[in-house]
């Protein structure tokens, strides 16, 4: 090991120790429940950041549609793990499936027509798309109406497959990967800004579809009560072994059960994160990783060496999106609900970007560090900001409008702080806290 890499390792250890200290500090100063909540979302954020780092750090692909892939992962979790709704599925499930198949067939036929026809291909493609759209709507719409009419107050959707929720995680990743393939096929190979704008668009569309297609996952009425991979707090409090454990430690069973559940989640997420780090690190060190970095650093040279740049880009784009989808499914499982209304680009796309840039793009450990650190900051800016504002406004007269306004506006400190952190890191430490080796 050279001294440089040794120095880097020490630096990484110190920074991760700092994250641990922040979490422990939160546990001691606030409560262990808060600290573990931050830890769990931190683990998920780290997985998201890893996914983005695969795209940006390995290949220089600028994806600003992370929110869409996160949401698709969440949708996967719902479709796999929720109990089946046989009544709704028999009422319109078949029609919907047929409609979707017809829709897909229309697109495929249009693409084939465009590629194969010798003459009038533009008109033929347009005609196929137009006719296909009306057929698609006429088949799909009655099915949707039938499904949404089934018990709309609490269901009104096709339900899921009723499979274990852990299985939903890779499926969420697959859904995201599928969407990434479609978008990558169209926008990759064009200039980088176009991919950015295309992904920005697809994310908005995914959210719009999830909000409005009630038959799928109830839209803004939200799906709640997703099955959990870990025991429920109430069951724990009843369990014999758990009560013995609690009396041994001498703690309150209610608090202990909430902490136990969070620790169980943390264990699951931790295993996934470590597995992904191992995979990504070996990928980066392999010939494939070297090729990716060669492509990133000089596309023309890599192309001259016979590397298929567009195909590699598509591959890495799909892989990264799958990891983000996986994180999305994990998050929906942790929340126990899917709430399409809460997906905001600033929180789910641009915050993850801050994590990757601050952590160190191109370095997997950096992305993970950024995930933890920025998530901690995101949560803690609010109480810290409130303290700061109280300090600033302490001298002002009570009841003055400025004081009230400043105290009310604390919630918006977050965005301001994140922007400043991003700009400062980009300016003074452009390679991030843990630079690529």
């Amino acid at each position: 090991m050279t001294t440089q890499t040794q120095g880097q390792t020490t630096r990484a250890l110190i920074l991760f120790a700092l994250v641990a200290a922040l979490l422990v500090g939160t546990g001691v100063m606030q409560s262990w429940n808060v600290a573990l909540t931050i830890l769990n979302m931190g683990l998920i954020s780290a997985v998201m950041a890893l996914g983005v780092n695969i795209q940006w750090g390995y290949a220089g692909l600028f994806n600003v549609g992370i929110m869409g892939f996160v949401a698709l992962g969440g949708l996967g979790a719902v479709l796999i793990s929720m109990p089946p709704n046989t009544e709704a599925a028999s009422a319109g499930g078949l029609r919907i499936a047929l409609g979707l198949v017809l829709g897909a067939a229309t697109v495929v036929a249009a693409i084939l027509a465009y590629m194969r026809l010798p003459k009038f291909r533009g008109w033929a493609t347009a005609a196929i798309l137009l006719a296909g759209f009306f057929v698609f709507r006429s088949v799909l719409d009655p099915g949707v109406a039938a499904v949404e009419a089934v018990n709309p107050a609490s269901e009104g959707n096709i339900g899921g497959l009723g499979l274990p929720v852990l299985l939903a995680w890779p499926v969420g990743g697959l859904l995201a990967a599928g969407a990434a393939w479609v978008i990558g096929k169209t926008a990759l190979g064009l200039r980088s800004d176009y991919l950015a704008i295309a992904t920005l668009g697809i994310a908005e569309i995914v959210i719009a579809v999830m909000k409005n297609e009630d038959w799928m996952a109830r839209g803004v009425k939200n799906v709640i009560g997703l099955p959990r991979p870990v025991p429920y707090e109430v069951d724990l409090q009843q369990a014999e072994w758990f009560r013995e454990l609690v009396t041994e430690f001498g703690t309150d069973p209610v608090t202990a059960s909430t902490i136990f559940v969070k620790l169980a989640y943390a264990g699951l997420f931790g295993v996934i994160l470590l597995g992904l780090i191992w995979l990504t690190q070996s990928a980066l060190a392999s010939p494939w990783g070297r090729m990716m970095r060669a492509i990133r650093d000089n596309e023309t040279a890599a192309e001259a060496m016979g590397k298929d740049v567009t195909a590699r880009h598509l591959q890495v784009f799909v892989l990264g999106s799958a990891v983000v989808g996986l994180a999305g499914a994990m998050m929906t499982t942790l929340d126990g609900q899917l709430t399409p209304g809460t997906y905001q680009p600033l929180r789910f796309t641009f915050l993850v970007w801050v994590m990757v840039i601050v952590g160190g793009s191109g370095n997997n450990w950096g992305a993970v560090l950024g995930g933890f650190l920025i998530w901690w900051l995101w949560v803690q800016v609010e109480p810290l900001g409130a303290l700061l504002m109280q300090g600033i406004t302490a001298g002002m007269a009570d009841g003055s409008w400025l004081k009230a306004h400043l105290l009310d506006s604390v919630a918006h400190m977050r965005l301001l702080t994140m922007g400043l952190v991003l700009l400062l890191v980009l300016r003074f430490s452009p390679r991030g806290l843990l630079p690529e080796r």
Partner: protein
Amino acid sequence: MDILNALVALANFVIVPATAYGAQLALGALGVTLIYGILRFSNFAHGDTMAFGTMAVVLTTWGLQAAGITGGPLPTALLALPVGIAATALLLLGTDRAVYRFYRVKKAVPVTFVIASLGVMFVMNGLVRFIIGPDDQRFADGERFLITARDFKEMTGLAEGLALKTTQVITVVVAVIVVAVLFWFLNKTRTGKSMRAYSDNEDLALLSGINPERVVMYTWLMVAALATIAGTLYGLDKSFKPFTYFQLLLPIFAAAIVGGLGSPLGAIAGGFVIAFAEVTITYPLKKVLGYLLPESLEPDGLVQLLSTDYKFAVSFVILIIVLLFRPTGLFKGKAV
């Protein structure tokens, strides 16, 4: 008569709103395209720049109203525009000094600028929410309608009414004036010519003694004016909510790309293409078709191709089609 009624219905629900919306998008896209042409990056902070400018206008409007000054039949916000533009210009010049100039001197790659603009976007977004809050603000005053639907029906005796909102007319009038001034500036003045030269070929422009910092400063000033005017017109027509302005980013980018990034004429065309497509496809055409088709063929449904919630999908699909078949846009913008 039926044909006239159909035309009036179409004008009332599609043509008039889409024209106003198109003018707003065009002004927004002009800002994006100017930044792209001169500074060579896609500015993700543009939506929030518009929000900031509009916020400054809203606050000034309230101040004017409190002082008893109004625009009479016109919205007071028009009087407040210069203040809003000045505030936005200061903010943009400040950001350029604090953020972008560093990377310009370093000759950083475009994507670095884009990431920096993400940071700027966060800060501006936070700033706007911090000052005025995340809620809806209405600030339109003056006459609401130029012609109400009822007046129109009485005047013409048709079954369908055509309402013309004051804000829609103002939008189009202001947009025409702004675009005329912009094109005069770009084509006739010395500074405008040097800006176009800089955009076409940076090295050649530098060689002929054009001061790049001056060009950049003028660009930001023009962007400040365009963004503030676009945002204010949109806010007058609909309402002002910071998050909506952030979401406008997508149709604005789509308009700029469809027209051809870097081409001012293209930005205007793109704005109208996107606006008309969005409004036509998300509007239920039943009423219009009801007048045109014989009774037996009358459609049962609303003939709404897509629900209004999918309006983003429309701009997106147009964007994809243009990217696939004509990546440089309708008006041959910059490639690469």
